[in-house]
């Protein structure tokens, strides 16, 4: 304590730390020192390192030194610090956590939150009399910046704190935030940013995100000639690594660990501007292992039903357990199974995003109060809200990514100097491989590399309209501002212009809408929003999260007097995705809110359900979609383990046996190869292959392969895909064709399938249409539909599917279609990853014709019947429906 220079940390803070028996951690002081030098800083630290306090310390110190405002009109002060969090709940949580030290030190600082829940009188007052520190979300920042008072409101801003930056930057919300940040730095050139992030492998992306990416940028406003970029903000290499307290570092504990050193960044005036970096080494080595069973795991499936008794025992033996699963439906299943075993009546709760908000809040409160023994949850609990005394984390199913699993493990023992205890529970044999790879990654503290995002054009369109609402802009200055945001650093002038044209009139080659333009260029070359109505439209549309439309699930009451009639009289259980409801037919049973429900139909935009009789098994498969595809990093490790028999020692014996069996019956491919197996079975011919690129990429591959097989007259009937591979089946003999034509498989898997075949499929693809719809909403082409809003009938709403068809035909290169294609590349279709795979396996396809199914192939074959077979061919579905009618007529 005594070695902290008083100039850095004022007495009142030092006294406070002392009174609590604490010492400021070195990274907190480090960050403070840098911030006080006026530098932007990225703090990378594991959970529990006191990240939030570190992030706010510079602001608290500065505000304390500044002294209280006397509140006179003359002395009115603007906002000092803006804190942005991805979650509304996190902002509220942080506000609460800040209050304690501030109250104890008696700091005269005003902290307020601003979220969608903030009442309008308070919002108005915040603009009138800004607090010292404002805690908010990216969407609220966008709204504030689109305000006519924005410039005045932010002019005194000193610091921006971005929490959970690693999770924000990977999405369109991150794009929107980056544009907001660029505007903040244009309004208030003195602003520096503090980014708070969990451990990431390549922090440089995040460091770039925090500082303007262009050396010299002029202000977007006419009438100001002083460029804010003239002050060089490029980073200076900062390589000292703060190790918390006396805890041995991970490097000391684990000899295999290589200490990650931050990449050298260019010295002052270098090419890529980056924020300074402060890294806190991980605390104690996590105590993490794979749950091994005596009995062999199934070859497929995601329910981990065999492991439930073991998980239950673990819950019983610990104080509080978080059971993480990957999907809502897995959560439902796990919750139900655990209760089936729950003879002790342990307080086990369920938490996922589709549950009714009040139900979720009750679980969160019970959890915080220490009343729960376990919570089964999905990604809704991934982010940093403090959960109290969790002493065990169980991850059921595939880990999917090294960083994800670290983040989840971090939820236990929220103090970094105690080891976290965690179990990985594989549900099938492939998941054993994935768990093994994830364990290795955790022990090496290796992380997935998040891909640098290229700023989405639909988000830019939204931002352009927002900025026009705030004040008039000139194209040149605004372009410079936009391209100072890291995701948009490579934005071309042409794309920028195309986005502006889109906002103005739709940007169509046929200039039909000039007279309806939303933003208009004046004689002074300044673009202005046309009228207040357009500004209002913008405010209603802001944000990048387009929820797949959800519909409420209401418990119905059966009428005794009229069997078969169900009245919508019960309570709301939560919400399900509209597209999920669309595939349900009356009588289908499915798991929801911890119960087996029977679908009774749609009534007034609500799904009406009744409780299915006890002992009913849900009919609708409980595994829905690969929400998180296997990360490329883990996939590569899985392929390596598979290819290297020396690695097999570290796998459970059942696994080794299975792999040996595969090697005898077929082969095991090398880490860069693609194994293709063909075999006949029950009058059909099958082709399986194992790219390990995740379910989404495999689905796209399956769609394209079936198209090509169709053209090759091999009569494909369908395909199934999982995270590891796909199986295509049909009535044509693929092996015979491959024997006749040695190039056949190479051609079948050639990269040109991403050309015309992909285009032809995209024309029809429901996934592509969904992607387009999201872009159209974000860009402001059509208005957002709000939850609870009734479908307004056929004349008022417009179907984006129809718009997609028309636009695709007439302007295939329109900016919105380009935005949708860019999304498809990484989103629901994962085309980018498929492309990488096709490139990797070029000339490395190993074809193994077999007379029957191999051990490896069994796993994906088992998905047939369990999984929905994908097809976007309407005629096929209709023909089947028509035939059903004929069957009925003939019966």
């Amino acid at each position, binding site marked *: 304590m005594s070695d902290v220079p008083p100039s850095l940390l004022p007495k009142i803070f030092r006294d406070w730390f002392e009174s609590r028996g604490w010492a400021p951690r070195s990274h907190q002081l480090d960050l403070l020192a840098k911030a006080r030098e006026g530098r932007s800083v990225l703090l990378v630290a594991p959970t529990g390192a006191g990240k939030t306090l570190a992030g706010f310390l510079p602001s608290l110190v500065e505000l304390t030194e500044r002294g209280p405002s006397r509140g006179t009109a003359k002395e009115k002060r603007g906002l000092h610090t803006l804190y942005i969090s991805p979650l509304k709940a996190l902002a509220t949580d942080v506000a609460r956590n800040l209050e304690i030290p501030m109250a104890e030190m008696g700091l005269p600082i005003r902290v307020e939150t601003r979220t969608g829940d903030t009442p309008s009188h308070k919002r108005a007052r915040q603009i009138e009399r800004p607090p010292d520190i404002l805690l908010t979300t990216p969407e609220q920042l966008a709204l504030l910046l689109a305000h006519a008072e924005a410039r005045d409101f932010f002019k005194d801003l000193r610091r921006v704190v971005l929490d959970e930056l690693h999770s924000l930057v990977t999405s369109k919300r991150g794009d929107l935030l980056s544009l907001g940040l660029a505007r903040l730095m244009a309004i208030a050139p003195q602003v520096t940013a503090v980014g708070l992030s969990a451990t990431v492998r390549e922090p440089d992306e995040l460091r770039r995100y925090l500082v303007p990416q262009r050396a010299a940028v002029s202000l977007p406003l006419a009438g100001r000639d002083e460029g804010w970029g003239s002050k060089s903000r490029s980073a200076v290499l900062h390589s000292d690594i703060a190790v918390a307290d006396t805890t041995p570092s991970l490097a000391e504990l684990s000899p295999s660990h290589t200490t990650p050193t931050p990449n050298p960044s260019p010295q002052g005036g270098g090419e890529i501007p980056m924020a300074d970096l402060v890294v806190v080494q991980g605390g104690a080595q996590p105590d993490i292992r794979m749950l091994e069973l005596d009995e062999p795991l199934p070859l497929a499936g995601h329910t981990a039903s065999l492991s439930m008794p073991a998980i239950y025992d673990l819950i019983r033996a610990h104080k509080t357990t978080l059971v993480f699963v990957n999907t809502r439906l897995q959560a439902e299943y796990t919750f139900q199974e655990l209760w089936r075993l729950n003879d002790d009546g342990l307080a086990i709760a369920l938490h996922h995003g589709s549950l009714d908000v009040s139900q979720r809040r009750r679980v969160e409160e019970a959890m915080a109060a220490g009343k729960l023994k376990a919570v089964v949850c999905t990604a809704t609990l991934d982010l940093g809200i403090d959960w109290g005394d969790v002493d065990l984390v169980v991850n059921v199913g595939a880990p999917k990514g090294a960083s994800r699993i670290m983040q989840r493990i971090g939820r236990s023992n929220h103090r970094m100097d105690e080891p976290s205890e965690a179990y990985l529970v594989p549900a099938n044999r492939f998941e054993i491989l994935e768990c093994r790879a994830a364990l290795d990654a955790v022990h090496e503290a290796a992380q997935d590399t998040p891909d640098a995002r290229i700023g989405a054009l639909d988000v830019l369109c939204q931002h352009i309209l927002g900025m026009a609402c705030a004040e008039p802009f000139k194209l040149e200055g605004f372009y410079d501002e936009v391209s100072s945001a890291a995701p948009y650093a490579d934005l071309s002038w042409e794309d920028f212009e195309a986005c502006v044209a889109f906002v103005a009139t*739709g940007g169509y080659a046929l200039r*039909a809408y000039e007279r309806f333009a939303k933003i208009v260029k004046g004689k002074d070359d300044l673009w202005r929003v046309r009228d207040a109505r357009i500004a209002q439209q913008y405010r209603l549309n802001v944000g990048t999260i387009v929820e797949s439309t959800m519909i409420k699930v209401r418990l119905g009451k059966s009428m005794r007097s009229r069997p078969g009639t169900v009245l919508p009289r019960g309570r709301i259980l939560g919400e399900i995705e509209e597209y999920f409801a669309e595939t349900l037919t009356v009588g289908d049973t499915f798991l929801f809110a911890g119960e087996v429900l029977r679908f009774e139909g749609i009534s007034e935009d609500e799904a009406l359900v009744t409780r299915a009789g006890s002992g009913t098994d849900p009919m609708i498969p409980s595994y829905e979609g690969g929400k998180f595809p296997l990360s490329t990093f883990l996939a590569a490790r899985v392929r390596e383990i598979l290819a290297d028999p020396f690695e097999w020692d570290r796998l459970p014996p059942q696994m080794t046996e299975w792999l040996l069996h595969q090697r005898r019956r077929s082969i095991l491919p090398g880490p860069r190869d693609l194994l293709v197996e063909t075999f006949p079975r029950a009058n059909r011919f099958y082709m399986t292959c194992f790219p390990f690129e995740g379910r989404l990429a495999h689905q796209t591959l399956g769609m394209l392969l079936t198209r090509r097989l169709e053209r090759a007259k091999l009569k494909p009937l369908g395909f199934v895909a999982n995270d590891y591979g796909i199986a295509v089946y049909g009535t044509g003999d693929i092996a015979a064709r491959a024997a006749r034509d040695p190039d056949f498989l190479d051609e079948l898997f050639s990269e040109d399938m991403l050309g015309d075949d992909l285009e032809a499929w995209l024309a029809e693809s429901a996934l592509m249409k969904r992607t387009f719809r999201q872009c159209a909403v974000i860009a402001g082409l059509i208005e957002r539909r709000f939850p609870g809003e009734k479908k307004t009938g056929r004349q008022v709403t417009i179907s984006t599917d129809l*718009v997609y*068809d*028309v636009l695709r035909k007439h302007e295939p290169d329109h900016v919105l279609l380009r935005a949708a294609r860019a999304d498809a590349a990484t989103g629901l279709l994962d085309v980018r990853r498929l492309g990488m795979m096709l490139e990797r396996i070029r000339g490395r396809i190993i074809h193994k014709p077999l007379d029957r199914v191999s051990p490896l192939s069994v796993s994906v074959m088992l998905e047939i019947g369990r999984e929905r077979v994908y097809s976007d*061919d*309407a*005629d096929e579905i*209709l023909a089947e429906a028509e035939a059903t009618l004929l069957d009925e007529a003939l019966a």
Partner: protein
Amino acid sequence: MTALVKNKKTTHEIELAGQLALLDLTGAMYLPAHDALLVADLHFEKGSSFARRGMMLPPYDTRETLVALCDAVFRFDPKTVIALGDSFHDIGGPERLGDEERTTLADVQAGRDWIWVTGNHDRVLPESIGGQVVEEMALGSLTLRHEPAAGDQAEIAGHLHPVGKVVMRGRATRRRCFLTDGQRCVMPALGAYAGGLNACDAAFKPLFPKGFTAHLIGSERIFAIAKSMLCRD
């Protein structure tokens, strides 16, 4: 204006009020006994109607709708063409029509009797649009009007934009369709941006008290689907 895809079975025969009707993949209906082609709910200039309110939909919908209209008209080459109302999305529609579209429309009208039945979106149509404007009309025993009216009378109407949704083993498709019970037919909307109302909606109930068959327009042909096979949205 458009090339027909080979092997497409573009028409589908049904019997309506005792006479043959050909249902076309474009959504048009041809009545050989009257040499008349019927289309419904063209909603020309819906795109520009939205643009006026700040939603800049691609301005190609009228063009797209005309392609389908011309395709049907030139193939059947009928003496009479009857548009069953809501041919324009709003009253200002005819005036906003682009030059190219105006010419195309004039071309397809040339040499035929062209009748515009008015609808709730286009109660008034300017003379410049060509053809004859009526509120409703009779064609033999059939009444043609925009909004279907319940009752025993044989009728062909539009207005409701019927679509049928079919779910088979977890796969769903939603398509425009003709609904008929043999006496009454509600035609699908032909407009490129015209949305649809699910055939299971209560609005159809009074029109077809004894049920109906839906003729769903697929990509290659039309499919007759029993009402019991249709799902709600």
